[in-house]
């Protein structure tokens, strides 16, 4: 627990960060900027896990382990997503979401 900072302030901070990520996810059209917004949202979730661990269950390390696993999965997801983007760009010369409808039947 950090002295002088109530848990509500940190939770509101991570809420704001999450909804900024949602804003980017809904308004952007370029696939890479959508990926950046997803990373912002994952980051907000990580902050929540860490804060619950530190404030509510300080004798455990569960929140930290979940954050570590989220970071590892985010790395795997970013690698596969970027491989897909590069392949798309090679095939249709664009990574705008509206033009990526080649697999639609």
């Amino acid at each position: 627990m950090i002295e002088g900072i109530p848990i509500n302030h940190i939770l509101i901070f991570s809420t704001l960060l999450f909804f900024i990520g949602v804003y980017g996810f809904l308004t952007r059209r370029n696939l890479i900027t959508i990926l950046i917004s997803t990373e912002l949202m994952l980051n907000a979730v990580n902050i929540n896990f860490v804060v619950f661990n530190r404030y509510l269950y300080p004798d455990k390390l569960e929140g930290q382990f979940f954050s570590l696993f989220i970071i590892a999965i985010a790395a795997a997801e970013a690698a596969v997503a970027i491989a897909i983007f590069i392949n798309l760009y090679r095939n249709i010369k664009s990574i705008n979401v509206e033009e990526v409808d080649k697999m639609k039947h």
Partner: protein
Amino acid sequence: MTEVFFYLFTAIVLTFAVLAVTTRRILRAAVYLLFVLIATAVIYFITNFYFLAAVQILVYVGGIVVLIIFSILLTSHLDQRLEKPSALKVLFTTIAIIVGAIVTTYTIYGYNFQSNGREPEDTSVNTIGKQLLNYGDNGYVLPFEVISILLLAAMIAAIAIAKRDKEPADD
């Protein structure tokens, strides 16, 4: 002192997050994401999770952001601006996120968070490593192994997807 640092870095995170989702130059969005991730690592340092802060800097800043910047350089023209989202879309999205944020804030203030009041566990790498590879109570060896398989699968998938086909190619 800690409080000043904490509020300073939350302000930095939120400012650069807003810039990252609103800027019209794509490379700048990636650099703003970099600042957000570093400032988040500082917040982890403030909450005494040193190992997590180090992993955040290593994997996110050293890995993911570099990967994103490479893919931007491969797929976009740097002098080209992203088109503006339509005003209607911005309006509806803003309404949606404001409503979502208000509902979440209301829930946070309505819930009474109670600490269990125990002494803090030390967060040294020694403790973390022992608990991560422990298969008894509170052990995390199964997710650890599953993550390692996932990383292997992701690596093979990334190579298989991005590999150029051999046969066609008159370009």
